């Protein structure tokens, strides 16, 4: 359950930001999940809720919303752009799992579908991110 570590890092960042902004309570956290990382959303949400239970009053009534971000890639050589969903079916289970743990190994296991280059970039939808935090001072 590697999603647990990511959930923990999200909440740790939120609490750190709340401390910095002097928020007494956190009302809402908007989280982005990049398609490339292939997060199991059920497990991720379960982990978030379990960790929240142990974090006392600051996160007690927090509303969590999760947005999935489409993963797009762009070749630095031929400028072709494509979606991870288009190439996912070509990956075997081990390659797909490796990208789940470390999204950048997409550069190792896949190539630009047009020119075959490994020199491309992840333009959107890499992994987990915090879109916004709302709270009261």
């Amino acid at each position, binding site marked *: 359950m590697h999603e*647990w570590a990511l959930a923990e*890092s999200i909440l740790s960042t939120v609490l750190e930001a709340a401390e910095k902004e002097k928020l007494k309570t956190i009302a809402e956290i908007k989280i982005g999940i990049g398609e490339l990382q292939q997060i199991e959303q059920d497990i991720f949400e379960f982990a978030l809720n379990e960790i929240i239970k142990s974090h006392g009053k600051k996160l007690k009534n927090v509303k969590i919303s999760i947005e999935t971000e489409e993963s797009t890639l762009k070749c630095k050589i031929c400028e072709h752009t494509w979606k991870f969903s288009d190439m996912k079916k070509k990956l075997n289970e081990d390659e797909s799992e490796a990208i789940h743990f470390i999204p950048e190994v997409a550069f190792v*296991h896949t190539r630009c579908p047009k020119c075959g280059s490994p020199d491309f970039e992840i333009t959107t939808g890499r992994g987990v991110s915090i879109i916004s935090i709302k709270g009261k001072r």
Partner: protein
Amino acid sequence: MEARVSVIEKRLKSIKRIISVASGKGGVGKSLVASTLALNLVEKGHKVGLLDLDLYGPSSHIILGVKDVFPEEEKGIIPPKIHGIKFMSIVYFTEDKPSAFRGIDITNIIIELLAITQWGALDYLIIDMPPGIGDETLDVIRFIKKSEFLVVTTPSKVVMGAVSKLLKILKELKIPVIGVLENMKMTESPIIEDSIIEMNLPFIGSIFFDENLEDAIGDGDLLLKTKFMEELDNNLKKTNL
């Protein structure tokens, strides 16, 4: 907003000392020193982890003979134990295929590895660094505040040219340097020792070129019996490791 960095300190909290084995140049034996140092410390009864951060050219797994293992998933990933060393490397995820990464990707991989790896309690975490003062070195300095450096060189003026740049930047940033180890020494020459002393940094000592070492690569038990290991062990007695 970057969501992974704040948890790194927590992941490294139960590690007493973090030693980055680094050099300004490649091919000086960093991975060998890092791997054998880890083996040596395990032999002495310590709890040890080894993180190979050479993302383009990882080699610690070749030195230790790591095959057919994968981290266990438990609230993150738990590195498998190789000869008693908790070993983490990008090779688990690349299947040892060529890995072409740009700087931003290197940083992202390092953050991800540090954020999801559950090392648990360790006496030592050894980091096998890639050569130079690029992204990996800067990221270790940025994210692993308690890291100390053990710098490896060879008796070559060309290598020392690059190594002295690494040493100067570590000194400027007030990063603890355990010392400099001269590897693959062929003749009795004080050139390296003198230049380290001139920089007012600790010179640990030398390891002579061991022509039988290659036969032990890939076998932890054989590595422990090499002349290289004997000399490394003698040198370590001059440090606080």
